[in-house]
């Protein structure tokens, strides 16, 4: 079962801490974004393996944009 990781709000991706193929645990911080004057960690929605990353560091994202797929 694949889980989609969506952007929690409008902003910019600062850091991506995983790459495709990495194993992650639920709640691991896998990206950091900046928005509304704060840095926000983006956490894995479930245990799994990162299947795909849809954004790059420095990308601007809208709320609910697809960031990654965890399988």
């Amino acid at each position, binding site marked *: 079962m694949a889980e989609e990781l969506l952007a*929690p*709000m*409008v902003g910019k991706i600062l850091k991506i801490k995983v790459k495709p193929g990495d194993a992650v645990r639920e709640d691991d911080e896998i990206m950091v974004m900046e*928005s*509304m*004057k*704060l*840095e*926000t*960690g983006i956490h894995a929605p479930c245990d799994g393996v990162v299947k795909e990353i849809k954004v790059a560091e420095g990308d601007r994202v*809208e*709320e609910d944009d697809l960031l990654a797929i965890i399988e």
Partner: protein
Amino acid sequence: MAADWKELKERLEAERVRLRAGGGPPLQEKEHAKGKRTARERIDLLFDPGTFEEIDLFAKHIGRDYGLDKKEVPADGVVIGYGEVNGRGCMVYAEDFTVIAGTFGERHGKKICKIIDMARKYGFPVVGINDSGGARVTEQMGALSQYGQLFYRHVAASGVVPQIALIMGPVAGGQAYSPALMDFIFMVEKTSAMFIAGPPLVEAVVYEKTDEQSLGGPKVHGRITGVSDGTLADDRQCLEHTRRLLGYLPLNNQERPPYVTPEDSPDRETSELEEIIPTDQKRLYNMRRVIQCVFDRGSFFELKKDFAQNLIIGLARLNGHVVGVVANNPVKYNGALDYNAADKGSRFIRFCNAFNIPLVNFQDVPGFLIGTRSEHNAIIRHGAKMLYAYAEATVPKITCVLRKAYAGGYLAMCSKDLGADVVFALPTAEICLMGPQGAVNILFRKEIASSETPEETRARREAEFMEKYVNPTYAAGLQHVDDIILPGELRRRLIRALEMTLDKEEEAPNRKHGIMPV
């Protein structure tokens, strides 16, 4: 020969039993199988045992056509009356799904209107238990007109007595506007739904295949629309929740909310907040933990928890006094106010003001949410509601700035300028028109651009700006903040401020009503 007392008694008893049975045991079992309780079982769970007094048990429906003149419709499908919740009066109407699907006919509507009129006249809250297949089509104008009469009465009672709607089955069609005009709506998992048109009509008219739960189940109204104030697992829990809510509310707008002798000490130190609130402004924290720590232990009653999660609202007690809590939640949108949060907050603020419930506001807000999407969702129109609601409120308003209080967000969360009676700030507060980053970009752009070490210059200018303008001593120096306090003092200081302002009197200007930017 006239009947004797024994016979009269037996006749009345038999009639009562027959009418109270509603649609009868087979239909009641059908409801039980769905996990639902019957109208009368629900009323028993709502009221203190033995306090319920039913009226209009003998009301008869008005149907004449389609053979309905021969059909008996016990109590016309709705039970009304009054009773006590924890010893305090309360009115109720409960639709009976076992009686022709709880459909809303003329007499059914008149009964509901009657109990709302009584609630308003005698000054008691009204709880409406909705469980109805919709309008009784055979009664046409009778039903339609009663919907109108019902809406009219909800509005007449609005702000006079608390009105609570419980959705314990379907609420379809025009009837969905009845709960919408009340103050609180609670729904029950799986068995409840609210929509203005059900799946068959939706498919016939707009060619969309859907089902009741996706149209208007508790998830939809709890998370997406904000129509619902909360979802409970079953009827019993929903009624228990309602009893608890009533414990925070005055019976009517002429009273203060009920005081209870607190078990928690007013002098309890709240230094735990030092663990909860990080001094590193980039780190998030759980605002609910702050609320649980500061208010009387276990007293926080949250509303609309899953909707607009960037703003937390609810009722709580502070040294036994009921207050309304409005707090930014940094975990969602970093606490920025969006159109849904503004809608949620302003409605709650107005409820509190109408029912003499003081407001306590916790600020950690980087501003209104910006960007194309936010503007297109009318953040200007909706954000204005927050400003309006706070400015209009004449109840005591006490604000504490925990961390960020930036720009419009600072005003919209009830600053001194919006009429806050007392404003505190923790040493971590950042109160400003514009954050250091943005300000330094504007003020020192040239200097940074021409610097040999631009990052260093920027950092130095930002630090200097923070110290000068963002530090709460700046706002306190200008009297926008009454005092800068330590986390450990927060509970005690809030209580002292609240008890000082409880007898506040402030006259609203003489006018019919203001024009709320809804």
